[in-house]
């Protein structure tokens, strides 16, 4: 906003205030999922003229779904969110302490995202086939009860 050539004649402080106010207004509208009538009523109370209100509302309608998504997912705290999983199956033959080990094992990495403070190291762990079966079993239980909950 500060670099826009059309706005270079306006005092930067005023520009900042305007930008902040507009942002606040939009976020509040998004927070309450306000519809156009509610917003125009509110803006009328602020003594904004009809033309400007209409312009604002049209733009709002266009961006409302995106706004709600942003507000719903990107802002706010939550535990580390799993986005993906990678796995590797290996068969150990020997190590420097023990030869002829002949043991298969899985290495699972959960790709994790932290909404806000950037990335977080992924969670990695090793497991045997039985342990992986246990993990998958538990995840399937969770999915099943999710399905049941949606059918209620």
């Amino acid at each position, binding site marked *: 906003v500060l670099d826009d050539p059309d706005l270079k004649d306006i005092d930067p402080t005023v520009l900042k205030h305007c930008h902040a106010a507009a942002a606040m207004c939009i976020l509040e509208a998004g927070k309450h999922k306000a519809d156009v009538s509610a917003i125009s009523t509110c803006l009328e109370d602020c003594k904004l003229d009809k033309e400007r209100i209409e312009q604002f509302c049209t733009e709002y309608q266009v961006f409302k779904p995106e706004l709600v998504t942003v507000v719903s997912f990107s802002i706010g705290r939550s535990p580390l969110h799993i986005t993906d999983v990678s796995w590797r199956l290996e*068969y150990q033959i020997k190590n420097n302490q023990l030869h002829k080990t002949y043991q298969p094992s899985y290495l699972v990495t959960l790709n994790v995202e932290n909404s806000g403070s950037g990335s977080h190291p992924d969670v990695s762990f090793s497991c045997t086939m039985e342990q992986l079966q246990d993990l998958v079993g538990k995840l399937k239980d969770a999915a099943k009860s999710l399905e049941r909950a949606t059918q209620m």
Partner: protein
Amino acid sequence: VSLLRQLASKKHFAFFKGKLNIGVDIIQHGVEGLVYLLTESSKLMISEVDFQDSIHVLGFSDELNKSLLQLYLDNRKEIRSILGELAPKLPSYHSLEWRLDVQLASRSLRQQIKPAVTMKLHLKQDEDQTAQVLQTDPATLLHLIQQLEQALGEMKMNHCRRIVRNMK
């Protein structure tokens, strides 16, 4: 390892010195040699025949050779499991707890219905247990299940079966 060190402690030597009437140094060397013989044999998992051939060069009596072989066979499994603990390891899976949540509102958005699965992943490394709280959405959960089921399926594939068979 600590067990082996215990065996090698001077205290025991002094005890045996009294019983067998030989120098402490000799006993220590004897024990160390025995320990080395057993750990190396267990590490390499050598067969009975190979073991017998190896100790034959030492020129002991047949009776001694037989007892050494028996000692090897009796303790091999335990020594191998102790050695197994020394290998480099990543934290390993211990268990998973899960719970279904529905987020109804937050500071930045009111009136939501956002389902989420919250999980507590218990991992174990050596003796410490850690618990990590993680969250995921239903779509990612199904994706995770699909991917991990594929992983499990791999062991049953011909390729893996062939390798496991041929590497024994």
